[in-house]
């Protein structure tokens, strides 16, 4: 399969110079790639994998970024570092194609899909409008978009995440590049869609005999797709080898750590006699759709449509489903942060009829941790102020020292340095911020905690640390968790009972063992197949 390498990278180093500060993002890495071969670059955020990929197309912000004197990128015998702009533009999108992580922001929201794909063809191949249209339609068929004629005239926002990623792939492949760079192409997608996209990329690569560089932090995906693997850490290659070598006989401790980074461990088993913390029956959250002019209600979006659940002290109920399935809204509805219909009994008291003022005393007992570690902390408050805010409100008679003491303890409980309380959120990594979020919620010692995808924006190894932390906290405090996630691996490590949601309704509900080991519904089966084996199963029940 592999022949002579057509891409050779030697001693590539990348420095970023901001003011007088020089950051060595990549410190002399070398690799090569042949046609039809997939090389995966894995590593955590900040390891320099994306920058390396961007440098292949010379897309870094020069001269802020610079390469070392011995760095060389040789593509089909041609040196790309220092090549003239015109030549680089010819190569980009023509001989080297690229798929980005976020299909939402890499498509121009103001142009129709057809125009964006046509553009690539017209610029590089000099096709006429009509010829470009024909070729675009072919490409849309190639990447497996249903009703391509209709989708061609859509704007990016009218497409689903998976469809947008397919369009991105169509754009990258429009000119049949010899090298395809895929930068975390499935990270932003749901698991079932991830499986479909991976299948598509693999299939296309074989058919077009492209060389591919696949960048990912997800070793599950890499194992599935790569021929050879490079493991990067802090800008250096720590291990390199074939798929088999890396996964079956990893040598470097960091590689071993990454491979074992999947969230592991058994969920806490609640005491069967533990008190019920939250209970709801047939909970509904319907958002009215209003006509644009008179603002009359003309229909409802049934975000949550009849969910019943019960969570005991020390128990975790996992809610899984794809984006748009209403799982976040379920959490917010339970906390009465959005209007919901249906009885909610919280620690023995019905709270569904209370207004926001009457709810306030209960707020300390039910808390929330969000997905996005960047948006969930007020950027202008210090970590100490963020954590102390709830205490100020709910326990106003604490003295300043007592409050400080509680903040320190909360930080220690989530394994952060108490001195961090004087710093601002932007100084922390995603994982640390997520710990601050947990500390903010736990400082009030709530009985019930809603965790809304707390791990999905984090690196694998950080995820498993957070999962361990949460499990440990629950064990100590006997908190009831509602754990919302699309990531079945984390759910498996935490949740004792599982609700599979789709379009606001329950698909399947039951104990974790039963759901994972013997799923009954076709949808659940396909979710599990996609998450654990990265294969597409029961195609008819999943969206694209």
């Amino acid at each position, binding site marked *: 399969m592999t022949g002579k390498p057509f891409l050779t990278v030697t001693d590539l180093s990348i420095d970023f110079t901001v003011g007088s500060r020089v950051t060595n993002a990549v410190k002399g890495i070398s690799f090569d790639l042949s046609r039809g071969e997939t090389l995966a670059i894995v590593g955590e955020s900040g390891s320099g994998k994306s920058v390396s990929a961007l440098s292949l197309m010379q897309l870094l912000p020069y001269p802020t970024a610079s390469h070392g004197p011995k760095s060389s990128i040789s593509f089909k015998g041609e040196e790309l570092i220092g090549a003239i702009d015109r030549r680089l533009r010819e190569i980009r999108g023509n001989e080297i194609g690229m798929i980005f992580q976020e299909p939402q922001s890499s498509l121009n929201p103001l142009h129709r899909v057809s125009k964006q794909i046509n553009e690539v063809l017209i610029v590089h191949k000099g096709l006429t409008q009509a010829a470009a249209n024909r070729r675009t339609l072919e490409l849309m068929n190639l990447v497996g978009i249903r009703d391509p004629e209709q989708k061609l005239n859509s704007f990016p926002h009218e497409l689903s995440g998976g469809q947008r990623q397919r369009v991105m792939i169509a754009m990258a492949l429009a000119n049949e590049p010899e090298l395809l760079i895929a930068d975390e192409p499935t990270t932003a997608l749901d698991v079932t869609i991830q499986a479909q996209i991976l299948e598509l990329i693999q299939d296309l690569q074989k058919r077009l005999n492209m060389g591919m560089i696949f960048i990912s932090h997800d070793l599950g995906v890499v194992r599935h797709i790569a021929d050879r693997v490079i493991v990067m850490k802090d800008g250096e290659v720590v291990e390199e080898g074939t798929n088999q070598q890396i996964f079956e006989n990893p040598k470097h401790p960091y590689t071993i750590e990454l491979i074992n980074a999947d969230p592991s461990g058994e969920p806490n088993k609640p005491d069967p006699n533990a008190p019920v913390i939250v209970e709801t029956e047939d909970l509904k959250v319907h958002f009215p759709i209003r006509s644009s002019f008179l603002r009359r209600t003309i229909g409802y979006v049934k975000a949550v449509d009849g969910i019943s659940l019960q969570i005991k002290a020390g128990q975790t109920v996992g809610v899984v489903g794809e984006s748009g399935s209403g799982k976040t809204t379920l959490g917010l509805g339970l906390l009465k*942060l959005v209007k919901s219909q249906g009885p909610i009994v919280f620690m023995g008291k019905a709270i569904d009829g209370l207004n926001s003022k009457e709810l306030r005393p209960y707020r300390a007992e039910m*808390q929330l941790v969000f997905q996005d570690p960047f948006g*969930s902390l*007020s950027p202008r408050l210090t970590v100490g102020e963020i954590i102390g805010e709830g205490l100020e409100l709910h326990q106003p008679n604490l003295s300043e020292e007592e409050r400080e003491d509680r903040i320190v303890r909360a930080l220690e409980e989530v394994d952060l340095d108490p001195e961090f309380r004087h710093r601002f959120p932007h100084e922390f990594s995603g994982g640390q911020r997520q710990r601050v979020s947990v500390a903010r919620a736990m400082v009030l010692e709530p009985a019930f905690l809603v965790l809304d995808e707390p791990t999905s924006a984090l690196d694998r190894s950080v995820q498993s640390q957070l999962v361990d932390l949460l499990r440990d906290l629950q064990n100590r405090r006997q908190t009831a968790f509602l754990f919302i996630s699309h990531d079945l691996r984390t759910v498996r490590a935490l949740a004792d009972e599982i609700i599979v949601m789709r379009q606001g309704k329950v698909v399947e509900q039951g104990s974790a063992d039963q759901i994972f080991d013997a799923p009954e519904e076709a949808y659940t089966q396909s979710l599990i197949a996609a998450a654990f084996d990265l294969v597409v199963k029961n195609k008819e029940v999943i969206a694209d």
Partner: protein
Amino acid sequence: MMSTDKQIKPKLFGLTVSPPTQRRWMKFRQNRRAFYSLWVFLILFVLSLFSELVANERPLLIKSDDGFFFPIMKSYSEESFGGDFPTEADYKDPYVQELIEERNGWFIWPPIRYNYTTISNDMEGEAPAAPSRHHWLGTDDQARDVLARILYGFRISVLFALILTVLSSVVGIVSGAMQGYFGGLLDMIAQRVIEIWTSMPQIYLLIILSSVIVPGFWTLLLLLFFFSWVALVSVVRAECLRVRNMDYVKAAKALGLSNLAIIRRHVLPNALVAAITFLPFIMASSVTALTALDFLGFGLPPSAPSLGELLQQGNNNRHALWLGLSGFVIIGLLLSLLVFIGEGVRDAFDPRKAAVE
């Protein structure tokens, strides 16, 4: 467990401040231009606050056989120095000076022996007189010392601008935050009102109004305030609209914070940086607005020391270069200082601009 917690609260000018404030101050200091501008501005401002001690037609202190006199604080009749009239002594009159010196007296004069209304008689040539030993920046066309008028005028301009800025930012920020955070109908109505309000031709309205009511410091302040409060609304509103959907606002709601508390703690601080960036510009535009009205003759009463009036005189007496030039320099200096300080404050409040530590 608390062993690491030997935190000494940082102090700033003797006041205990929180670490973030401390860090902002450090960052502000690192911006040399802003830091020196602040000092120059403060020195000028404090100097102008004590204008009476710097530029006055009365001596600061007189000592004679009859004891100490403080003409600045108290008015003394000519008789109290042994003169003829029961009216107030004119200390510039050589006769009065002689009277005091006869009683072994001496004077301490302020550095500039004129205040903003003093009509000078010791200039060379006729008014407006060119700069000379007595009048460092010359006199205006009514024989008043330009330097003294600049000093007093600076004080009026800065005080006026300060009060106007504070008033209009408080009202602007509050109304912008309300509109942005609550949105909906309130926002819709308020936005339309502001649109109509801002499309009124301000300067004509001000001219018409100032011909109906006698313009003074406070009436002008009120008139300009009617129009200047909208300046911050759109900035603060936009920022609040953005912030109110952030997860941390949801988190605050989940903590049970009231709307007002959420606005105060989570929404406003974010909007404030945007607002603070605008403050020096609002202050600068307040200075300009007052100057413009004075220049057109619809501002402060004619005898009041005003920078606009100085510019007007410069325009009317183009042969007297020192009038226009000193007016230009002082206004230019004031506006530049304000903008430099503003830039420093803005950068210091931005947590993403890391301080070089």
